[in-house]
Protein backbone atom coordinates (compact mmCIF):
# COMPACT_ATOMS: atom_id res chain seq x y z
CA UNK A 1 0.00 0.00 0.00
CA UNK A 2 2.81 2.43 0.82
CA UNK A 3 4.33 1.99 -2.63
CA UNK A 4 0.94 2.66 -4.19
CA UNK A 5 0.74 5.84 -2.13
CA UNK A 6 4.24 6.95 -3.21
CA UNK A 7 3.47 6.25 -6.87
CA UNK A 8 0.08 7.97 -6.82
CA UNK A 9 1.19 11.06 -4.93
CA UNK A 10 4.11 11.45 -7.34
CA UNK A 11 1.88 11.26 -10.40
CA UNK A 12 -0.70 13.60 -8.82
CA UNK A 13 2.03 16.11 -7.98
CA UNK A 14 2.86 16.36 -11.68
CA UNK A 15 -0.69 17.56 -12.34
CA UNK A 16 -1.34 19.55 -9.18
CA UNK A 17 1.27 22.14 -8.11
CA UNK A 18 -0.49 22.52 -4.75
CA UNK A 19 0.64 19.10 -3.54
CA UNK A 20 3.45 18.98 -0.99
CA UNK A 21 4.82 15.91 0.76
CA UNK A 22 6.14 16.05 4.31
CA UNK A 23 7.90 13.03 5.73
CA UNK A 24 8.94 12.36 9.31
CA UNK A 25 12.40 11.10 8.36
CA UNK A 26 11.05 7.96 6.74
CA UNK A 27 10.48 6.58 3.25
CA UNK A 28 14.09 7.11 2.28
CA UNK A 29 14.05 5.46 -1.15
CA UNK A 30 10.30 5.28 -1.59
CA UNK A 31 9.88 8.99 -2.32
CA UNK A 32 13.00 9.30 -4.50
CA UNK A 33 10.99 9.95 -7.66
CA UNK A 34 8.92 12.62 -5.91
CA UNK A 35 12.05 14.23 -4.46
CA UNK A 36 13.84 14.23 -7.80
CA UNK A 37 10.91 15.61 -9.75
CA UNK A 38 9.64 18.14 -7.16
CA UNK A 39 12.50 18.95 -4.77
CA UNK A 40 10.85 22.19 -3.72
CA UNK A 41 7.70 20.35 -2.62
CA UNK A 42 9.26 17.55 -0.57
CA UNK A 43 10.19 18.18 3.05
CA UNK A 44 11.98 15.79 5.33
CA UNK A 45 10.72 17.30 8.56
CA UNK A 46 12.93 15.12 10.70
CA UNK A 47 11.79 13.22 13.77
CA UNK A 48 9.55 16.10 14.79
CA UNK A 49 5.97 15.21 14.00
CA UNK A 50 4.31 18.02 15.96
CA UNK A 51 6.17 20.59 13.91
CA UNK A 52 5.58 18.62 10.71
CA UNK A 53 1.82 18.74 11.29
CA UNK A 54 1.85 22.45 12.10
CA UNK A 55 3.97 23.17 9.02
CA UNK A 56 1.49 21.22 6.90
CA UNK A 57 -1.40 23.23 8.33
CA UNK A 58 0.43 26.48 7.62
CA UNK A 59 1.02 25.38 4.03
CA UNK A 60 -2.63 24.40 3.66
CA UNK A 61 -3.68 27.84 4.93
CA UNK A 62 -1.64 29.28 2.05
CA UNK A 63 -3.61 27.26 -0.50
CA UNK A 64 -1.40 24.18 -0.76
CA UNK A 65 -2.43 20.52 -0.35
CA UNK A 66 0.10 18.94 2.03
CA UNK A 67 0.35 15.24 2.88
CA UNK A 68 2.18 14.26 6.08
CA UNK A 69 3.65 10.78 6.22
CA UNK A 70 5.24 8.53 8.80
CA UNK A 71 4.54 5.45 10.93
CA UNK A 72 1.04 5.49 12.39
CA UNK A 73 1.54 6.28 16.09
CA UNK A 74 3.97 9.09 15.28
CA UNK A 75 1.79 10.80 12.70
CA UNK A 76 -1.36 10.48 14.84
CA UNK A 77 -1.16 10.28 18.62
CA UNK A 78 2.31 11.85 18.88
CA UNK A 79 0.96 15.04 17.33
CA UNK A 80 -2.72 14.67 18.13
CA UNK A 81 -3.08 18.23 19.35
CA UNK A 82 -1.55 19.67 16.20
CA UNK A 83 -3.99 17.59 14.15
CA UNK A 84 -6.86 18.76 16.33
CA UNK A 85 -6.00 22.47 16.48
CA UNK A 86 -3.86 23.31 13.46
CA UNK A 87 -5.57 20.99 10.99
CA UNK A 88 -9.13 20.27 12.09
CA UNK A 89 -10.02 23.50 13.93
CA UNK A 90 -8.93 25.41 10.83
CA UNK A 91 -10.50 22.84 8.52
CA UNK A 92 -7.17 22.89 6.70
CA UNK A 93 -6.98 20.43 3.78
CA UNK A 94 -4.09 18.41 5.20
CA UNK A 95 -3.99 14.66 4.61
CA UNK A 96 -2.43 12.67 7.44
CA UNK A 97 -0.99 9.52 5.90
CA UNK A 98 -0.20 6.73 8.35
CA UNK A 99 1.80 3.68 7.39
CA UNK A 100 1.61 0.49 9.42
CA UNK A 101 -2.04 -0.17 10.26
CA UNK A 102 -2.68 -2.50 13.17
CA UNK A 103 0.15 -5.00 13.54
CA UNK A 104 1.85 -4.20 10.22
CA UNK A 105 5.02 -3.37 12.14
CA UNK A 106 4.42 -6.19 14.59
CA UNK A 107 8.02 -7.15 15.26
CA UNK A 108 8.97 -3.56 16.06
CA UNK A 109 6.91 -3.81 19.22
CA UNK A 110 3.88 -2.10 20.67
CA UNK A 111 5.43 1.36 20.25
CA UNK A 112 4.90 0.80 16.51
CA UNK A 113 1.56 -1.01 16.67
CA UNK A 114 -1.47 0.98 15.65
CA UNK A 115 -4.76 -0.26 17.05
CA UNK A 116 -6.09 3.00 18.51
CA UNK A 117 -5.55 5.49 15.69
CA UNK A 118 -8.99 5.27 14.08
CA UNK A 119 -10.57 6.05 17.44
CA UNK A 120 -8.41 9.14 17.91
CA UNK A 121 -8.85 10.41 14.37
CA UNK A 122 -12.54 9.83 13.94
CA UNK A 123 -13.62 11.85 16.94
CA UNK A 124 -11.92 14.98 15.65
CA UNK A 125 -14.51 17.39 14.23
CA UNK A 126 -14.29 17.64 10.45
CA UNK A 127 -11.91 14.71 9.99
CA UNK A 128 -12.61 12.13 7.30
CA UNK A 129 -11.17 8.67 8.02
CA UNK A 130 -10.24 6.39 5.14
CA UNK A 131 -8.73 2.89 5.48
CA UNK A 132 -8.15 1.38 2.03
CA UNK A 133 -8.34 -2.39 1.62
CA UNK A 134 -5.63 -2.81 -1.00
CA UNK A 135 -3.14 -0.87 -3.13
CA UNK A 136 -5.75 -0.05 -5.78
CA UNK A 137 -8.02 1.42 -3.12
CA UNK A 138 -5.06 3.51 -1.92
CA UNK A 139 -4.63 4.88 -5.43
CA UNK A 140 -8.33 5.62 -5.79
CA UNK A 141 -8.49 7.16 -2.32
CA UNK A 142 -5.63 9.58 -3.06
CA UNK A 143 -7.42 10.73 -6.23
CA UNK A 144 -10.64 11.25 -4.26
CA UNK A 145 -8.85 13.08 -1.43
CA UNK A 146 -7.31 15.61 -3.79
CA UNK A 147 -10.73 16.38 -5.26
CA UNK A 148 -12.16 17.37 -1.87
CA UNK A 149 -11.00 20.16 0.42
CA UNK A 150 -11.02 19.00 4.03
CA UNK A 151 -8.79 17.22 6.55
CA UNK A 152 -8.38 13.51 5.88
CA UNK A 153 -6.79 10.63 7.75
CA UNK A 154 -5.51 7.95 5.36
CA UNK A 155 -4.59 4.68 7.05
CA UNK A 156 -2.26 2.44 5.06
CA UNK A 157 -1.03 -1.08 5.71
CA UNK A 158 2.62 -1.60 4.90
CA UNK A 159 3.67 -3.22 1.65
CA UNK A 160 3.03 -6.35 -0.33
CA UNK A 161 -0.57 -6.85 0.73
CA UNK A 162 -2.57 -9.07 -1.70
CA UNK A 163 -4.41 -7.15 -4.42
CA UNK A 164 -8.17 -7.50 -4.21
CA UNK A 165 -9.17 -5.33 -7.14
CA UNK A 166 -7.82 -5.64 -10.67
CA UNK A 167 -7.52 -1.88 -11.12
CA UNK A 168 -8.43 1.26 -9.21
CA UNK A 169 -12.11 0.74 -8.30
CA UNK A 170 -14.90 3.30 -8.49
CA UNK A 171 -14.22 5.07 -5.27
CA UNK A 172 -16.34 7.56 -3.44
CA UNK A 173 -15.44 8.77 0.04
CA UNK A 174 -18.16 7.52 2.39
CA UNK A 175 -19.41 4.76 0.09
CA UNK A 176 -18.44 1.15 0.74
CA UNK A 177 -17.36 -1.13 -2.09
CA UNK A 178 -19.18 -4.47 -2.27
CA UNK A 179 -16.59 -7.12 -3.11
CA UNK A 180 -19.04 -10.00 -3.25
CA UNK A 181 -22.77 -10.45 -2.68
CA UNK A 182 -24.28 -12.79 -0.11
CA UNK A 183 -27.33 -13.09 2.15
CA UNK A 184 -26.54 -14.89 5.44
CA UNK A 185 -23.70 -12.81 6.82
CA UNK A 186 -22.51 -9.35 5.84
CA UNK A 187 -18.81 -8.83 6.51
CA UNK A 188 -17.89 -5.18 6.78
CA UNK A 189 -14.13 -4.77 6.62
CA UNK A 190 -12.06 -1.66 6.95
CA UNK A 191 -8.43 -1.45 5.98
CA UNK A 192 -5.63 -3.95 5.68
CA UNK A 193 -7.62 -7.02 6.82
CA UNK A 194 -9.64 -7.07 3.59
CA UNK A 195 -7.85 -10.22 2.28
CA UNK A 196 -8.64 -11.98 5.57
CA UNK A 197 -12.30 -11.01 5.32
CA UNK A 198 -12.47 -12.38 1.78
CA UNK A 199 -10.75 -15.63 2.77
CA UNK A 200 -13.11 -16.00 5.75
CA UNK A 201 -16.00 -15.52 3.33
CA UNK A 202 -14.66 -18.30 1.10
CA UNK A 203 -14.38 -20.69 4.04
CA UNK A 204 -17.95 -19.93 5.12
CA UNK A 205 -19.18 -20.43 1.56
CA UNK A 206 -17.66 -23.92 1.61
CA UNK A 207 -19.72 -24.55 4.74
CA UNK A 208 -22.87 -23.56 2.88
CA UNK A 209 -23.12 -20.02 4.25
CA UNK A 210 -23.67 -17.11 1.88
CA UNK A 211 -21.45 -14.15 2.74
CA UNK A 212 -21.50 -10.60 1.51
CA UNK A 213 -18.11 -8.87 1.78
CA UNK A 214 -17.80 -5.11 1.78
CA UNK A 215 -14.71 -2.94 1.82
CA UNK A 216 -16.01 -0.22 4.08
CA UNK A 217 -12.96 1.93 3.49
CA UNK A 218 -14.44 5.08 4.96
CA UNK A 219 -15.02 4.90 8.70
CA UNK A 220 -16.08 8.54 8.82
CA UNK A 221 -18.48 9.47 7.42
CA UNK A 222 -20.23 6.10 7.53
CA UNK A 223 -22.19 4.79 4.57
CA UNK A 224 -25.73 5.10 5.96
CA UNK A 225 -27.48 3.48 3.05
CA UNK A 226 -25.15 0.51 2.96
CA UNK A 227 -25.48 -0.02 6.72
CA UNK A 228 -29.28 0.16 6.60
CA UNK A 229 -29.34 -2.43 3.85
CA UNK A 230 -26.86 -4.68 5.63
CA UNK A 231 -28.66 -4.62 8.96
CA UNK A 232 -32.07 -5.24 7.39
CA UNK A 233 -31.18 -7.83 4.77
CA UNK A 234 -28.74 -10.18 6.56
CA UNK A 235 -29.36 -11.97 9.86
CA UNK A 236 -25.77 -11.35 10.96
CA UNK A 237 -23.50 -8.37 10.33
CA UNK A 238 -19.85 -8.52 11.35
CA UNK A 239 -17.09 -5.93 11.33
CA UNK A 240 -13.44 -6.82 10.78
CA UNK A 241 -10.54 -4.48 11.45
CA UNK A 242 -6.97 -4.64 12.69
CA UNK A 243 -7.87 -2.06 15.32
CA UNK A 244 -9.18 -2.04 18.86
CA UNK A 245 -12.84 -2.84 19.44
CA UNK A 246 -12.91 0.47 21.27
CA UNK A 247 -13.54 3.35 18.94
CA UNK A 248 -12.75 1.86 15.54
CA UNK A 249 -15.11 0.74 12.79
CA UNK A 250 -17.03 -1.55 15.14
CA UNK A 251 -17.34 1.24 17.69
CA UNK A 252 -18.56 3.63 15.03
CA UNK A 253 -21.18 1.16 13.85
CA UNK A 254 -22.26 0.38 17.42
CA UNK A 255 -22.89 4.10 17.84
CA UNK A 256 -24.69 4.17 14.49
CA UNK A 257 -26.89 1.27 15.65
CA UNK A 258 -27.74 3.07 18.87
CA UNK A 259 -28.90 6.04 16.83
CA UNK A 260 -30.59 4.17 13.99
CA UNK A 261 -31.77 0.91 15.56
CA UNK A 262 -33.25 -1.35 16.49
CA UNK A 263 -32.28 -3.38 13.45
CA UNK A 264 -33.13 -6.97 12.60
CA UNK A 265 -29.59 -8.23 12.28
CA UNK A 266 -27.31 -9.43 15.04
CA UNK A 267 -23.96 -7.68 15.26
CA UNK A 268 -20.57 -9.31 15.77
CA UNK A 269 -17.39 -7.25 16.24
CA UNK A 270 -13.97 -8.64 15.29
CA UNK A 271 -10.88 -6.62 16.08
CA UNK A 272 -7.90 -6.39 18.39
CA UNK A 273 -7.97 -6.71 22.18
CA UNK A 274 -7.66 -3.88 24.69
CA UNK A 275 -4.05 -4.64 25.55
CA UNK A 276 -0.40 -4.10 24.64
CA UNK A 277 1.86 -6.96 23.57
CA UNK A 278 5.03 -7.32 25.61
CA UNK A 279 6.35 -10.40 23.84
CA UNK A 280 7.71 -10.29 20.33
CA UNK A 281 5.84 -11.61 17.31
CA UNK A 282 5.23 -11.23 13.60
CA UNK A 283 2.05 -9.80 12.13
CA UNK A 284 0.75 -13.28 11.32
CA UNK A 285 1.59 -14.42 14.87
CA UNK A 286 -0.28 -11.52 16.43
CA UNK A 287 -3.20 -12.04 14.08
CA UNK A 288 -3.38 -15.67 15.22
CA UNK A 289 -3.18 -14.57 18.85
CA UNK A 290 -6.05 -12.16 18.39
CA UNK A 291 -8.30 -14.26 16.20
CA UNK A 292 -7.74 -12.20 13.06
CA UNK A 293 -7.37 -15.20 10.74
CA UNK A 294 -9.81 -16.49 8.11
CA UNK A 295 -10.35 -19.72 10.05
CA UNK A 296 -10.95 -18.09 13.44
CA UNK A 297 -13.32 -15.61 11.88
CA UNK A 298 -15.18 -18.28 9.90
CA UNK A 299 -15.55 -20.47 13.03
CA UNK A 300 -16.75 -17.58 15.15
CA UNK A 301 -19.29 -16.38 12.62
CA UNK A 302 -20.59 -19.86 11.83
CA UNK A 303 -21.28 -20.39 15.54
CA UNK A 304 -22.90 -16.99 15.90
CA UNK A 305 -25.14 -17.68 12.92
CA UNK A 306 -26.20 -21.01 14.42
CA UNK A 307 -27.14 -19.26 17.68
CA UNK A 308 -29.53 -16.93 15.88
Amino acid at each position, binding site marked *: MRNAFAKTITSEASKDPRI*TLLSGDIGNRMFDKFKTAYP*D*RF*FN*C*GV*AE*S*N*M*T*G*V*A*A*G*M*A*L*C*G*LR*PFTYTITPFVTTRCL*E*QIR*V*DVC*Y*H*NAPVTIVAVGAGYSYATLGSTHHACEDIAFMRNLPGMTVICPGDAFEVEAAVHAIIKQNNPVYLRLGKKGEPLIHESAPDFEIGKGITIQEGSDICLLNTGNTLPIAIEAGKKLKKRGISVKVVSLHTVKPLDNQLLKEAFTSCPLVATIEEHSLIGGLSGAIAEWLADNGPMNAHFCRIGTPDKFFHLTGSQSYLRKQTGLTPKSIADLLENRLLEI
Partner: protein
Amino acid sequence: MPETLEEIECLSRRIRGWLVEITYKKKTAHLASALSCVDIMVAAYCGGTLNIKPSNASSPERDRIILSKGHAVGAQYAILAYRGFFDEKLLDTWNEDGGQLPEHPSPRCVPGLELATGSLGHGLPCGLGMALGLRIKKLDSKVLVVLSDGECNEGSVWEAAMMAPAQKATNLAVIIDYNKWQATGRSDEVLSLHPLSEKWKAFGWYTREVDGHNLTELQNAIEDAYRQKDKPTAIIAHTVKGKGVSFMEDDNNWHYRAPTADEVSLALLELGLA
Protein backbone atom coordinates in the same frame (compact mmCIF):
# COMPACT_ATOMS: atom_id res chain seq x y z
CA MET B 1 -3.16 54.78 9.84
CA PRO B 2 -0.76 56.28 12.39
CA GLU B 3 2.34 57.71 10.75
CA THR B 4 4.49 59.52 13.28
CA LEU B 5 6.15 57.93 16.29
CA GLU B 6 3.95 60.07 18.50
CA GLU B 7 0.81 58.77 16.81
CA ILE B 8 2.03 55.20 17.12
CA GLU B 9 2.80 55.64 20.82
CA CYS B 10 -0.65 57.13 21.25
CA LEU B 11 -2.11 54.02 19.64
CA SER B 12 -0.20 51.82 22.11
CA ARG B 13 -1.66 53.77 25.03
CA ARG B 14 -5.15 53.56 23.56
CA ILE B 15 -4.86 49.77 23.18
CA ARG B 16 -3.63 49.47 26.78
CA GLY B 17 -6.58 51.54 27.97
CA TRP B 18 -9.04 49.34 26.11
CA LEU B 19 -7.40 46.19 27.49
CA VAL B 20 -7.68 47.45 31.08
CA GLU B 21 -11.31 48.48 30.63
CA ILE B 22 -12.48 45.36 28.83
CA THR B 23 -10.75 43.12 31.35
CA TYR B 24 -12.65 44.92 34.09
CA LYS B 25 -15.97 44.75 32.22
CA LYS B 26 -15.74 41.12 31.12
CA LYS B 27 -13.70 39.77 34.05
CA THR B 28 -11.28 38.02 31.75
CA ALA B 29 -7.72 36.87 32.49
CA HIS B 30 -4.33 37.53 30.90
CA LEU B 31 -4.36 41.33 31.09
CA ALA B 32 -0.68 41.55 32.00
CA SER B 33 0.30 39.21 29.15
CA ALA B 34 -1.55 41.41 26.66
CA LEU B 35 -0.04 44.63 28.05
CA SER B 36 3.37 43.02 27.68
CA CYS B 37 3.12 42.62 23.90
CA VAL B 38 1.17 45.74 22.89
CA ASP B 39 4.23 47.58 21.61
CA ILE B 40 5.43 44.52 19.72
CA MET B 41 2.08 44.20 17.97
CA VAL B 42 1.92 47.92 17.22
CA ALA B 43 5.42 47.85 15.74
CA ALA B 44 4.47 44.80 13.66
CA TYR B 45 1.30 46.32 12.22
CA CYS B 46 2.37 49.96 11.99
CA GLY B 47 6.13 49.73 11.47
CA GLY B 48 5.96 49.81 7.70
CA THR B 49 7.86 46.58 7.04
CA LEU B 50 4.95 44.17 6.95
CA ASN B 51 2.32 44.68 4.27
CA ILE B 52 -0.92 43.70 5.96
CA LYS B 53 -3.86 46.07 5.92
CA PRO B 54 -7.65 45.91 5.65
CA SER B 55 -7.56 46.16 1.86
CA ASN B 56 -5.28 43.12 1.40
CA ALA B 57 -6.36 41.03 4.41
CA SER B 58 -7.56 38.19 2.14
CA SER B 59 -4.96 38.55 -0.56
CA PRO B 60 -2.54 35.63 -1.01
CA GLU B 61 0.29 38.18 -1.32
CA ARG B 62 -0.23 39.73 2.12
CA ASP B 63 2.34 39.41 4.88
CA ARG B 64 1.22 37.35 7.86
CA ILE B 65 1.40 38.26 11.55
CA ILE B 66 0.67 35.45 14.00
CA LEU B 67 0.25 36.04 17.71
CA SER B 68 1.19 32.61 18.98
CA LYS B 69 0.58 33.60 22.61
CA GLY B 70 -3.14 33.52 21.96
CA HIS B 71 -4.08 34.40 25.54
CA ALA B 72 -2.89 37.93 24.74
CA VAL B 73 -5.14 38.25 21.69
CA GLY B 74 -6.87 41.31 23.16
CA ALA B 75 -3.84 43.29 22.01
CA GLN B 76 -4.29 41.93 18.49
CA TYR B 77 -8.08 42.39 18.36
CA ALA B 78 -7.60 46.01 19.42
CA ILE B 79 -4.96 46.91 16.88
CA LEU B 80 -6.87 45.16 14.09
CA ALA B 81 -9.99 47.14 15.00
CA TYR B 82 -8.14 50.44 15.36
CA ARG B 83 -6.45 49.90 12.01
CA GLY B 84 -9.83 49.28 10.36
CA PHE B 85 -9.80 45.53 9.78
CA PHE B 86 -13.21 45.42 11.45
CA ASP B 87 -15.66 47.75 13.16
CA GLU B 88 -14.41 49.00 16.53
CA LYS B 89 -17.87 48.41 17.97
CA LEU B 90 -17.20 44.69 17.70
CA LEU B 91 -14.56 45.06 20.42
CA ASP B 92 -17.35 45.55 22.96
CA THR B 93 -18.58 42.02 22.20
CA TRP B 94 -15.33 40.45 23.47
CA ASN B 95 -16.11 37.23 25.29
CA GLU B 96 -19.90 37.60 24.97
CA ASP B 97 -22.25 34.67 24.45
CA GLY B 98 -22.51 34.05 20.72
CA GLY B 99 -19.86 36.67 19.96
CA GLN B 100 -17.04 36.30 17.48
CA LEU B 101 -14.20 37.45 19.75
CA PRO B 102 -13.30 34.56 22.07
CA GLU B 103 -10.67 34.85 24.80
CA HIS B 104 -8.46 32.81 22.49
CA PRO B 105 -9.09 33.51 18.81
CA SER B 106 -10.97 31.06 16.62
CA PRO B 107 -9.97 30.53 12.97
CA ARG B 108 -10.50 33.69 10.89
CA CYS B 109 -12.79 35.10 13.61
CA VAL B 110 -12.02 38.60 12.30
CA PRO B 111 -10.24 39.82 9.16
CA GLY B 112 -6.48 39.86 9.68
CA LEU B 113 -6.50 37.09 12.26
CA GLU B 114 -4.31 34.46 10.60
CA LEU B 115 -4.34 31.59 13.07
CA ALA B 116 -6.42 30.26 15.93
CA THR B 117 -4.06 30.15 18.87
CA GLY B 118 -4.44 29.57 22.58
CA SER B 119 -2.70 26.27 22.91
CA LEU B 120 0.94 27.32 23.10
CA GLY B 121 3.64 26.15 20.73
CA HIS B 122 1.49 26.11 17.60
CA GLY B 123 2.22 29.48 16.02
CA LEU B 124 5.81 28.90 14.97
CA PRO B 125 5.28 25.55 13.19
CA CYS B 126 2.24 26.96 11.37
CA GLY B 127 4.08 30.21 10.61
CA LEU B 128 7.00 28.20 9.23
CA GLY B 129 4.54 26.25 7.07
CA MET B 130 3.16 29.54 5.76
CA ALA B 131 6.66 30.85 5.06
CA LEU B 132 7.56 27.69 3.13
CA GLY B 133 4.17 27.65 1.40
CA LEU B 134 4.59 31.26 0.26
CA ARG B 135 8.02 30.40 -1.11
CA ILE B 136 6.59 27.43 -3.04
CA LYS B 137 3.99 29.78 -4.48
CA LYS B 138 6.82 32.12 -5.47
CA LEU B 139 5.45 34.97 -3.38
CA ASP B 140 7.77 37.39 -1.58
CA SER B 141 5.47 37.64 1.42
CA LYS B 142 6.84 37.62 4.94
CA VAL B 143 5.69 35.89 8.12
CA LEU B 144 6.14 37.21 11.66
CA VAL B 145 5.36 35.03 14.68
CA VAL B 146 5.14 36.54 18.16
CA LEU B 147 5.93 34.06 20.93
CA SER B 148 5.85 34.35 24.71
CA ASP B 149 8.83 33.32 26.78
CA GLY B 150 6.74 30.77 28.70
CA GLU B 151 5.70 29.35 25.35
CA CYS B 152 9.32 28.43 24.72
CA ASN B 153 8.70 25.59 27.20
CA GLU B 154 6.92 23.76 24.39
CA GLY B 155 9.03 21.27 22.44
CA SER B 156 7.21 22.10 19.23
CA VAL B 157 8.75 25.60 19.33
CA TRP B 158 12.22 24.06 19.20
CA GLU B 159 11.23 21.53 16.54
CA ALA B 160 10.27 24.46 14.33
CA ALA B 161 13.33 26.41 15.48
CA MET B 162 15.49 23.61 14.07
CA MET B 163 13.61 23.23 10.80
CA ALA B 164 13.42 26.91 9.84
CA PRO B 165 17.20 27.43 9.47
CA ALA B 166 17.54 24.04 7.73
CA GLN B 167 15.04 25.32 5.17
CA LYS B 168 16.69 28.76 5.06
CA ALA B 169 13.32 30.34 5.77
CA THR B 170 14.49 33.92 5.47
CA ASN B 171 10.94 35.18 5.01
CA LEU B 172 10.21 34.12 8.60
CA ALA B 173 10.97 36.04 11.78
CA VAL B 174 9.95 35.61 15.39
CA ILE B 175 9.70 38.09 18.21
CA ILE B 176 9.86 36.64 21.70
CA ASP B 177 7.98 38.70 24.25
CA TYR B 178 10.54 38.10 26.99
CA ASN B 179 8.85 39.46 30.12
CA LYS B 180 10.57 36.90 32.37
CA TRP B 181 7.29 35.55 33.75
CA GLN B 182 5.01 32.66 32.91
CA ALA B 183 1.64 31.82 34.42
CA THR B 184 2.84 30.71 37.83
CA GLY B 185 6.46 31.67 38.14
CA ARG B 186 9.63 33.27 36.81
CA SER B 187 10.17 31.80 33.36
CA ASP B 188 13.85 31.16 33.96
CA GLU B 189 13.13 29.28 37.18
CA VAL B 190 10.29 27.09 35.85
CA LEU B 191 12.29 25.73 32.93
CA SER B 192 15.77 27.04 32.36
CA LEU B 193 15.31 29.60 29.61
CA HIS B 194 18.44 31.69 30.08
CA PRO B 195 20.40 32.43 27.93
CA LEU B 196 17.51 32.80 25.52
CA SER B 197 19.23 34.71 22.75
CA GLU B 198 22.14 32.26 22.75
CA LYS B 199 19.70 29.35 22.53
CA TRP B 200 18.12 30.71 19.35
CA LYS B 201 21.54 31.53 17.96
CA ALA B 202 22.70 27.99 18.66
CA PHE B 203 19.65 26.71 16.80
CA GLY B 204 20.80 28.54 13.69
CA TRP B 205 18.99 31.88 13.84
CA TYR B 206 20.20 35.43 13.57
CA THR B 207 19.34 36.98 16.89
CA ARG B 208 18.92 40.51 18.10
CA GLU B 209 17.92 41.83 21.49
CA VAL B 210 15.77 44.93 21.76
CA ASP B 211 13.80 46.92 24.30
CA GLY B 212 10.35 45.47 23.64
CA HIS B 213 8.66 48.73 24.54
CA ASN B 214 10.81 50.93 22.32
CA LEU B 215 8.87 51.24 19.07
CA THR B 216 11.83 52.52 17.08
CA GLU B 217 14.05 49.64 18.18
CA LEU B 218 11.28 47.15 17.42
CA GLN B 219 10.55 48.61 14.00
CA ASN B 220 14.22 48.63 13.04
CA ALA B 221 14.66 45.05 14.19
CA ILE B 222 11.65 43.87 12.17
CA GLU B 223 12.91 45.72 9.10
CA ASP B 224 16.39 44.20 9.42
CA ALA B 225 15.05 40.70 10.05
CA TYR B 226 13.95 40.12 6.48
CA ARG B 227 17.20 41.47 5.03
CA GLN B 228 19.13 38.45 6.25
CA LYS B 229 19.97 36.23 3.31
CA ASP B 230 20.58 32.80 4.74
CA LYS B 231 18.89 32.46 8.15
CA PRO B 232 15.62 33.36 9.82
CA THR B 233 15.75 36.00 12.55
CA ALA B 234 14.71 35.81 16.19
CA ILE B 235 14.20 39.12 17.96
CA ILE B 236 14.42 38.83 21.73
CA ALA B 237 12.24 41.65 22.98
CA HIS B 238 12.87 42.46 26.62
CA THR B 239 9.51 43.44 28.02
CA VAL B 240 7.74 44.11 31.29
CA LYS B 241 4.67 42.09 32.06
CA GLY B 242 1.77 44.46 32.75
CA LYS B 243 3.65 47.33 31.02
CA GLY B 244 2.02 50.75 31.12
CA VAL B 245 0.25 50.54 34.46
CA SER B 246 2.68 51.00 37.34
CA PHE B 247 0.89 48.79 39.84
CA MET B 248 0.59 45.94 37.34
CA GLU B 249 4.15 46.05 36.05
CA ASP B 250 6.20 42.97 36.86
CA ASP B 251 3.50 41.73 39.27
CA ASN B 252 2.47 38.29 38.10
CA ASN B 253 -0.84 38.39 39.98
CA TRP B 254 -2.10 40.26 36.94
CA HIS B 255 -1.66 37.19 34.79
CA TYR B 256 -5.12 36.18 35.98
CA ARG B 257 -6.50 39.16 37.93
CA ALA B 258 -9.04 41.59 36.56
CA PRO B 259 -8.92 45.19 37.85
CA THR B 260 -11.56 46.85 40.03
CA ALA B 261 -13.34 50.05 38.94
CA ASP B 262 -10.95 52.16 41.02
CA GLU B 263 -7.95 50.41 39.55
CA VAL B 264 -9.29 51.06 36.05
CA SER B 265 -9.54 54.77 36.83
CA LEU B 266 -6.01 54.85 38.16
CA ALA B 267 -4.71 52.95 35.15
CA LEU B 268 -6.43 55.26 32.65
CA LEU B 269 -5.00 58.24 34.48
CA GLU B 270 -1.49 56.80 34.23
CA LEU B 271 -2.02 56.09 30.55
CA GLY B 272 -3.12 59.66 29.98
CA LEU B 273 -6.54 58.52 28.85
CA ALA B 274 -8.68 59.77 31.74
